[in-house]
Each structure stands twice: as C-alpha cells, then as structure tokens.
C-alpha cells in the first residue's frame, strides 16, 4: 500500500479538517508527573493539536465497540431498532497490540452463528489511525505472541514519527479515502524515509527484546500445550490466593468479550440489555438450581487461561492475548499473566 509523508503542523490542520464531519478520539495524558506516563482517550475538539502516544492507551480498543452496559434491543413495542445515529468516528493512537486483540472481538461479533448488528455498525463507521510504538511500558510483552510493536495489517492509516512529521501508511480503502480528503497535506514518501522508518522500528524492537529476554517468557507456540499439561498443577491455586474477583482483568482486556443478556422494563418498554461479564465472578457459570461448574476461584482463574490459550488457539489459530499488559496493571492482587505462565512452564518441565 501507499506510504505518504506529512509534517506535524499539517497533520494538525488535517485533523482539524476531519473534525468537521468526524468524531475524533485521541490520546491525552492525565498526569504528566507520573513515573510511567498513562495515555487515555478523549474526544478531541476544535484545533487542539494531536498528541502522539508512544505506547497503547489505558482503555482497551473494544470499549469503542461494545459497552459495559447497553440496550441492544426493544421488544414487543411499536419500536424502532436501537441503532446509534453514528457520526463517523476516527480513533487516533491505536497500537499494534490493540489491533491484534481486536481480531478476537471481530471474530466473536462479526462471524459465526449471527452478526451483532450494532457492533458491525460501529465497526463500519470507525476509522483506525494507528501508530508505531516508540516506547513501551514495563508490562508490554507483545513480542512473546509474535506481535510487533508496529502494526502490519488491520489499520486504515498508520503513523510512524519521522523527524518533524510522520510517515502515513495506507492500510485500507478507508485509509486511501482519508488521504484523498487531505491531498494538499500529504506527499509521497521517499525511499530514504521508509528505510529510516525501518531503522527506528528495528531499534525499538531491539530495546523491547532486551527488556523481555531476561524475563524468560512463555511464547506463542508453546502456550496451548502448556496450559493443557498444567491443568492440574497448583499454579492456579497459588495465584488465586490474591484474586479478589474484581473482574478488572477481564473488563480491561482487549480480547475478553463475555457478556450477559439481561432484561429490563423502562416506561413500559421491554429492553434487552447486554452487560460485560467476567469469568472471575462467582456466578459466571452458575445454572438454575445452583450447580456451578466454576465453583472455586481456582477454577475460575484457570478458566480465564484455558479460554485464552486453549479455546482460541483451537477456534481462531491464535491465543487471545496481545501482550498489552493491561490486566497486569489493573490487578489489585498483583496477578501477572506472564508469571502465571512462567510458573506453569517451570513445573511442567520439572514434571516431564
């Protein structure tokens, strides 16, 4: 696909132009004094300059497409279907891990027995303007899952910072249309710029490898066999001890997709609600009559890993982890997905 170059000031002009007929979300820094900076998304207004986030934001990408609590349909009324009257939306600052994790959401809601029409509508109305990572957080470990810190596919436009501007790579027809919309701002990228991008990317990968190699992480090709063989190990119990069943790991995960359908009456209108659920909650698997196949916290913690590293490897050919590390940051019990897998690996080898 085509690669263009745009100067930083021109990018800001371009984005201002886009804001006239798009909702634009972009990252900002809540607390600039924090030791490790956190980026959050917000709706970007007016001529505010764009902030390039050096790594992924705190919120998972899924939160633009499924909501913690939302009405999905009315029934038995002279109803209009609930559909967002959606303005076109552009999300800046999406990272490679977000895009990888989002494959799981797309698989769940766009494929299989039926298509979730609200999800599809939001998806079709949204443009991803992603960016290379130029730094990483302590918890970042995308490389363990063969995910690079810059996206290769799945974006509409991808920005790579270069000198006083950005290289903008087109990843889709929507992306090419954007370029056409801002023709006056972009110029064709030169070979030398593209090779400079490669050097920057390689340097970041090297830095990330230096960070990750000493950790001795479990890697993509080994993980399914590992969780299967480690099914009966005490790892699950040991890591469960600090789990407070808050569900934070699920809710903030870019790949976790579980929800419950619930019903409600509002002004005499029947509503079907879709509410994010967490497999760490005690009632997650409970059936009428009280039987619960995931009675213990140990079973539920293990369930989370089996779903990610066994079910999805079989169903989609990839583990449902993108190495973003959000679950590690959010956990009040300091349960670290990397450490759980490493503990299994240590014990499975010892056993063999």
């Amino acid at each position, binding site marked *: 696909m085509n690669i263009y170059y745009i100067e930083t000031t021109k990018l800001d002009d371009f984005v201002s132009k886009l804001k006239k007929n798009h909702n634009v979300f972009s990252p900002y820094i809540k607390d600039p004094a924090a030791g490790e900076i956190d980026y959050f998304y917000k709706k970007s207004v007016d001529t505010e300059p764009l902030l390039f986030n050096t790594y992924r934001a705190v919120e998972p990408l899924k939160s633009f497409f499924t909501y913690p609590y939302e009405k999905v349909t009315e029934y*038995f009324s002279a109803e209009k279907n609930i559909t967002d009257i959606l303005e076109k939306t552009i999300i800046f600052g999406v990272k490679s891990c977000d895009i990888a994790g989002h494959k799981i959401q797309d698989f769940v809601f766009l494929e299989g027995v039926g298509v979730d029409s609200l999800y599809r509508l939001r998806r079709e109305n949204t443009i991803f303007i992603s960016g290379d990572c130029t730094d990483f957080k302590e918890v970042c470990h995308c490389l363990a899952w063969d995910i690079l810190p810059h996206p290769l596919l799945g974006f509409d436009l991808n920005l790579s910072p270069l000198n006083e501007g950005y290289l903008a790579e087109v990843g889709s027809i929507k992306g090419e249309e954007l370029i056409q919309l801002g023709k006056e701002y972009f110029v064709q990228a030169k070979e030398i710029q593209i090779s400079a991008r490669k050097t920057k990317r390689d340097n970041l990968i090297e830095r990330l490898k230096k960070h990750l190699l000493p950790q001795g992480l479990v890697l993509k090709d080994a993980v399914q066999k590992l969780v299967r063989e480690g099914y009966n190990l005490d790892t699950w119990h040991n890591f469960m001890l600090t789990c407070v069943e808050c569900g934070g790991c699920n809710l903030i995960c870019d790949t976790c997709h*579980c*929800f*419950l*359908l619930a*019903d409600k009456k509002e002004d005499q209108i029947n509503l079907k609600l879709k509410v994010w659920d967490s497999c760490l909650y005690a009632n997650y698997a409970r059936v009428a009559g009280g039987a619960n*196949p995931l009675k213990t916290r140990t079973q539920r913690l293990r369930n989370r890993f089996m779903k990610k590293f066994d079910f999805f490897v079989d169903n989609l050919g990839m583990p449902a982890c993108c190495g973003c590390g959000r679950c590690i940051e959010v956990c009040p019990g300091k349960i670290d997905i990397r450490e759980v897998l490493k503990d299994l690996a240590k014990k499975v080898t010892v056993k063999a």
Partner: protein
Amino acid sequence: MKNIYKPIEATIEDIIVETPTIKTFVLKTSESFEFKTGQFVELTLPGIGEAPFTPSSDPNVKEKLDVTMMNAGRVTSLLHNIPKNTSLGIRGPYGKGYPLEQFEGKDVLIVGGGVGLAPLRSLILALFARIDKYNKVVLRYGARTPEDLLYKELIPRWSRKKKVDVFTTVDVGDSSWKGNVGLVTTILKDLPVDLKKAISVVCGPPIMMKFVTLKLLDLGFSPKDIYLSMEKNMSCGLGKCGHCRIGSYYVCRDGPVFTYDILKDIPDIWE
C-alpha cells in the same frame, strides 16, 4: 439488518402441571418458528429475564411448541406463577440438535433422568413420526419419586407402541408404586438392543449422565455412539457471550448434544 438479540412474541396457550415442580407450557409464536429436535430456545419473561430450554414437542408440529420446565431458578420460578395467555419472548432455535439421520437403521436407546425427559420427548416424538426408519426405540427413565415422573399418561401409551420398549424406575418408591426402585443405572441391565447397531442418547442431571455414561461404556457402547445433552449457563445462544464453554467448544454453538468421544478428554465435563 436483523437484531440477533431480539425475541419474537410467543403466547402461552396452555399450561400443563406435570409434577409438583414441573410444568409444560404450550406456546404459540407470532411468526413461524421451526426447530430441529434437540435444539434449544431462549425464553424471555418480558422485562424480567431469560433462560434456555429445549422444546419437548414434536418438531414436525409447526404451529405450536411445548416447553417443559422445572421450577429451578429465578426466571423459572416466576414463569411457574404466570397465567395462560401471557406473552413471552422467544429467540432461537440454537445449537445443532440430534443428528437423526445417524440413528437410521439403529436400535435407539434413550436414557432420561428427571426433567431430562423433556428434550427426549421431542426426540421420541420425532422418532415415532418416522418409526419405519429406525430399528427400535428403547426408553429407560428414572425420577426421584413416583410423583416426580414426567408425562405420566404418555409413557404407558408409548410403551404399547410397536418397536418401542419402555421401562421406568424411581429412586424412592411409595405405597402405590409397583415398579422398579433404584437409580436409572439399575435398569440398564439386559437391554433389548444389539450393540453392533445401537446408539444411546442420555439427558438428565450431570451426575446422572456421568454414571449412565460409565455404565454404557461398561456395557460396550463406543464413545462415539453415546449422545449427551450438556447443561451450561447459556445466555446468548449464539456462541458470543462466552458462558457455556466446554474445552474448545461452546455448548450453544456446537451442542447442546455432543457425542462422548468429543468430550471424553476434556477435564471436568461433569462439574
């Protein structure tokens, strides 16, 4: 585009009291609604909640469907207390159901426990509708007590049919009960089936299915010839909400009927 979460309306035409804890609801849907035997539906009590059930009626009857349900949880306890002519919501059908074509020419052994006979009634009626295709139908059914037996008037009628062999049991008898007393596994002896051309279908509480499966294996049934109805917390029915995972399968999408050879290496399937 169709909203996959939206139920259509179904009116309760009749309510049949089967046992002190089980009722059958005869539903008439506002739009045509067809299902294959063994598939399940989600019933909505409007504005209140939703739960999964496998219809208990003949899938060849298009204008109505029956749902036999035990008063067991939040939604079913409310459903047990509503009058006729109430409107419910219905979504589905979901899942794969029983592969009837694989039962052709076979001795079909059906083993039910408690309210597990409900989905099996649909299967039995589907088999009866084309009974010439099957070699015979053998039903073994157990309930806790005589009054907990489902379809008390139907079962004697079934047993008088040609090519059909029925035997029931209760865990605990009473003064009027003249039949067998013991778990359903105690009436799986001397079965009138030819193992070389027999398949078995089991539905009941998990603990019952576990011991029946072990017994059937012991009798010489091959794991691929044991069809089990798995119970999980199905919410969406569409393979999206995540709740009903067993190993690398979803009960709603890939089941709810599975052959034991698919399940046998998955840990904790009876939990």
